[in-house]
Every structure is written in C-alpha cells, then in structure tokens.
C-alpha cells in the first residue's frame, strides 16, 4: 500500500530546534481564530440577541446547566466550567475541521520532503497529552487544595495496614492510568478515524468511505464530550472526597 500514514505528525519547520508539526501549526490558527472570534462576539453582545449570539448562548447555557447538575453547586460549577467547556469546544472544533474536503491534498515542500500541510489536530499525540496532563494536574491541585497536602499524600501512602498500603499504591497507579486512558481514548479515536478514512479512500473512493465518515462524525462529537465529562467527574470526585457526610 502506498499510503503515507505516520503515527507522528510531519514536521513543517523548526523554531530553535523545537519541531513544529503540521497539526501544531494548524492548532495555532484554530486558537487564534477562536480567541479573535470570541473577542469580537463579546464586543457585539446585545440584550436582544441576534441569531449567532442566540446559538452561542444556547450552547453555553445548556453546557453550564449540565455542568451544574454534575457538580451539584453553582459556585463550584462556575469555577470549573471554563476549563471543561474550553476543552470540549476546542476538541470539537478541531474534529469538525477534519471534515473539510480536500485538506490532505495540500502539500508543502520542506527540508524533509513533501509533507501534507493539514492534519487532524487531535491526531497529534503531543497536543492530546498536554491537555490530559492539564486535566490530571488540575485534579491533583483541587484534591490538595480541598484535603490539605498531608491527607492527600496519606491517600496514596497509607501505613495503617499492609492491605491499605497496597491499595494506596494501586490508587497511585490508577492516577497514572487515568493519564494513559484519557489521552489514548481521545487520540486513538481520532487517529483511527483518520487512518480508516485514508484506507477507505485508497480502496474504493466512491461510496465506501461514507459510513466510515458518518462514524467519524459521531466520534467527533462524542469523544470531546467524554473527555470533558471525565475531567469534570475527576475534579468533582477530588472535591467530594473531603466531604464524606455530604452523601
């Protein structure tokens, strides 16, 4: 097969020995677009919303109601909502961009040969890994802030009995496993969707890719939701663990 499938995204250029991949470059354009877009939206907010503002308000309002129902408390929901919704919206927007046709045909000549200019942003594991680490680190910080550092360490290094010590170590392994599972779920779904699309287009480009593209569209919506809901659940569990009486 003469497909150019590579796990690591292709490098476009280097910034003082840091390679910039095509997905990373695309992600700059995405977040510049999102930041500038939201800045202009903020400036043009009206009390009687136009259609675009209406759509955005429905989306954010619905998401906030959901987050509030999962956190239970409006103040906490307000604190955790920006992180969770931004992650959801960024991943969702990046995934939707992969459905613009004709992207993989645009190639650019670099030092390493001819590489495609565009690539699904979430199919770059480094981007997914960074987002996952942000999630997990925020969860640990919330746990430390709500339980105090000694109780937090006592959760993992529990010397009351050998069984508890073993369970504490398993908790530590579980935290590391969260990083792996969260990142691989998102990365694997999107990357596999890209590979599947490429293979189907290679085999029979006319109607065969269609059901796989639909599956890819479903994945593009569900996976960001799962990622941000899991982040939300981890953060809310990190808070709840200090209040066992509030069952």
């Amino acid at each position, binding site marked *: 097969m003469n497909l150019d499938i*590579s796990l690591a995204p292709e490098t476009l250029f280097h910034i003082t020995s840091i390679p910039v991949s095509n997905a990373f470059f695309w992600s700059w354009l995405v977040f510049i677009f999102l930041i500038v877009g939201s800045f202009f939206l903020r400036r043009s907010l009206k009390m009687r919303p136009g259609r675009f503002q209406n759509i955005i308000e429905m989306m954010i309002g619905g998401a906030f109601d959901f987050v509030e129902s999962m956190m239970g408390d409006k103040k906490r929901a307000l604190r955790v909502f920006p992180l969770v919704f931004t992650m959801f919206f960024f991943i969702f927007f990046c995934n939707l961009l992969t459905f613009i046709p004709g992207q993989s045909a645009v190639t650019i000549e670099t030092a390493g040969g001819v590489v495609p200019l565009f690539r699904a942003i979430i199919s770059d594991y480094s981007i997914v890994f960074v987002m996952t680490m942000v999630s997990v680190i925020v969860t640990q910080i919330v746990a430390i802030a709500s339980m105090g550092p000694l109780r937090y360490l006592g959760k993992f290094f529990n010397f009351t009995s050998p069984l508890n010590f073993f369970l504490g170590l398993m908790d530590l392994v579980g935290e590391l496993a969260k990083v792996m*599972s969260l990142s691989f779920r998102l990365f*694997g*779904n999107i990357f*596999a969707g890209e590979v599947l699309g490429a293979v189907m287009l290679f085999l029979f480009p006319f109607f065969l890719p269609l059901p796989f593209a639909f599956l890819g569209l479903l994945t593009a919506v*569900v*996976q960001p*939701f799962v990622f941000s*809901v899991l982040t939300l659940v981890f953060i809310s569990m990190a808070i709840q663990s200090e209040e066992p009486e509030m069952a």
Partner: protein
Amino acid sequence: MDMEAAKYIGAGIAMGLGAIGPAIGEGIAASKALEAIGRNPEANGKIAPLMFVAMAITESTGIYALVVALIILFA
C-alpha cells in the same frame, strides 16, 4: 521470521483479540439501555445520550488495542 511479517502478525493479533471485549460490553450496554427505554419510553431523552457516553467509554479498551496495533505497524 522477518520484521515485516512479525509486524503484520502482531498488529493482527492485537486488534483481533482487542475487538472481542468492547463488542460484548457495548452490546450489554445497548441492551440495558433499550430495555430501560422500553420500560419507560418518556425517559428516552435522558437515556439515549447517557448510553452513547457509556458506549464511548466501553469502547476505550478497543481503541487502546487499535493504538497498539497502529504503533506496531507504523512506528
């Protein structure tokens, strides 16, 4: 056995065995969700999205197997 053949066999086994578990799990999740909808058709709007979320999480281990297979093949 040369490297290419070993890669193909490894990827095939990884994905083949990895596809069994999630399929069973998602079937169970879907059947329970449909049963719940059958008992209470008005709760459809609440059950269906949660079913999709549960399926996405159940599918995770299958995706891990897929990532391992792709790593074996392409890296």
